[in-house]
Each structure stands twice: as structure tokens, then as C-alpha cells.
């Protein structure tokens, strides 16, 4: 059986900032659905994407309470992608830049996210069919 191909994504944007992170997550899901193993190197603000202490809130401007607002949380999106990868038997390996985590104090990440560094990103790239960098602006 042919070995599965891997794709690597490098993300840099924090959550709650713009649509680049959402676009990246959509591409990651598409890759998982196509049967690729996916590596993610989250750098700088992107280490906060899987941060578990993101919390829902009501929205007085919309006049909706907590439940009605049903606020989306990026850490749940990442968890859903992890689950989707498990379900499809592919690997989603998410590495948070450890120093970026330390700087921001966002230590609590969802299960499956691990700490790493630039060397990890290089290893990912070397073992992947391709790498997509989604930088911040």
C-alpha cells in the first residue's frame, strides 16, 4: 500500500483576528478529508488557536444570551479537526511553538497539541509533500 502523503501548514495569526486562520482550518479539513496526514506548526499568535480557556459569552448587542449566541471557539474547531482525523484514520500533528506559548502564557491547549520548536517545523517540511505558510499581516 502506498504511503500516505503529508502536508504541512505553518500558521501565524492569533484567533479572533481575521479570516486567515479560519481559511487555514478549512484547508486543513479539506486535506484530512482527502486522506492526507497533516502537520501544523503554530507560531507566534497562532499558539492561542487551540487555547482551551477561550470562553463563550452572551451578546447584548444581538440581544442573545449565552446559549442563544452559541459562540464558536477556535479551540473547539481544532478539537473537531483532531476528531475528524482520528475518524478517518489519518494523523493531525499540531505543534505549538513552545517559546511563543511561554511569552503569551497560553499553556492550556486541547489534547493532542504538543510543544515544539523551529526544528520540528523543519522536520515537518522535510517529510511533507508540500508546505503552506499562512503568515500574519
Amino acid at each position: 500500500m502506498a504511503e500516505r502523503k503529508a502536508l504541512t501548514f505553518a500558521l501565524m495569526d492569533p484567533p479572533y483576528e481575521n479570516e486567515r486562520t479560519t481559511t487555514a482550518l478549512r484547508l486543513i479539513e479539506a486535506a484530512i478529508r482527502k486522506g492526507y496526514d497533516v502537520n501544523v506548526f503554530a507560531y507566534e499568535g497562532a499558539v492561542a488557536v487551540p487555547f482551551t480557556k477561550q470562553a463563550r459569552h452572551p451578546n447584548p448587542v444581538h440581544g442573545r444570551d449565552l446559549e442563544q449566541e452559541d459562540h464558536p471557539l477556535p479551540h473547539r474547531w481544532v478539537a473537531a479537526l483532531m476528531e475528524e482525523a482520528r475518524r478517518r484514520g489519518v494523523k493531525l500533528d499540531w505543534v505549538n511553538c513552545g517559546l511563543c506559548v511561554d511569552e503569551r502564557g497560553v499553556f492550556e491547549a486541547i489534547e493532542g497539541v504538543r510543544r515544539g520548536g523551529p526544528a520540528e517545523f523543519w522536520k515537518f517540511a522535510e517529510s511533507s509533500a508540500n508546505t503552506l505558510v499562512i503568515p500574519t499581516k
Partner: protein
Amino acid sequence: MKALQIVETAYRATLEEQDDTVLWLTHSMKGAGADLAVLLRGNAVNYVVRGQDASGLRFGQEAQTRPPRIPDDVASLLAKGVPVFVVREDFEERGLDEKDAIEGVQFVARRELPELFERFDRVWHW
């Protein structure tokens, strides 16, 4: 004091927050009695275009149930008495026509902006 809120960076956090950050802030401060207006320029002019639909976002089993409805948020600001201005050239450069816009917004030419700014005590460019 009258303040003009200029929004230029469009769709910033709108999927996670389910609304535009600065429009939300304007709504909230208006509710607290602030005298505000909004100027949309750059890509943010698209906020007033009718018929947008951001629904359907889903990652695995995690669906977004409340997609942003930015044109409705703009209409709601207008209903609260917040004037909303749109830079006409920015709108036209994107192939949009004034008939594509929700009712009540006011189009201004770039050359009219200094005059518009003069009508406010504060101008905040987000």
C-alpha cells in the same frame, strides 16, 4: 462629543465573534449614550452589500450555528441613529453599484472626506 469610527479592515474576527469588532463596539457605546458615526472604506465597504450569506461553516462535527449578518448589523446601527458613510470610489472599484447597498447608508467621495472629518470632534481609524 461626536466621534467618527473609520472601519477599513474588513471581516476581522467576524466568523469567530459573529459580528464585526468595531461595529459591535459602536453598537455598545451607542447604547451607553455615545454620539457616533461610521465610515466604511477599503474592503469594509462590502459590509453594506445585500444578500451576503456566511452560513455553513463547519469543522468536523463542530458547526457554527450563528453566522455573522454584517449588513443587518449595519442596518441596526442606522436604526439606532448612527449615520453610516461609505467611500464611493472604494465601492465602485470593487465592481459594486449603489443599488447593491442596504438602504440608508450615505456615499461620500474621497475628496469630501476632510469636510466630513471636520464635522467630528474625534476621528478613530481602526
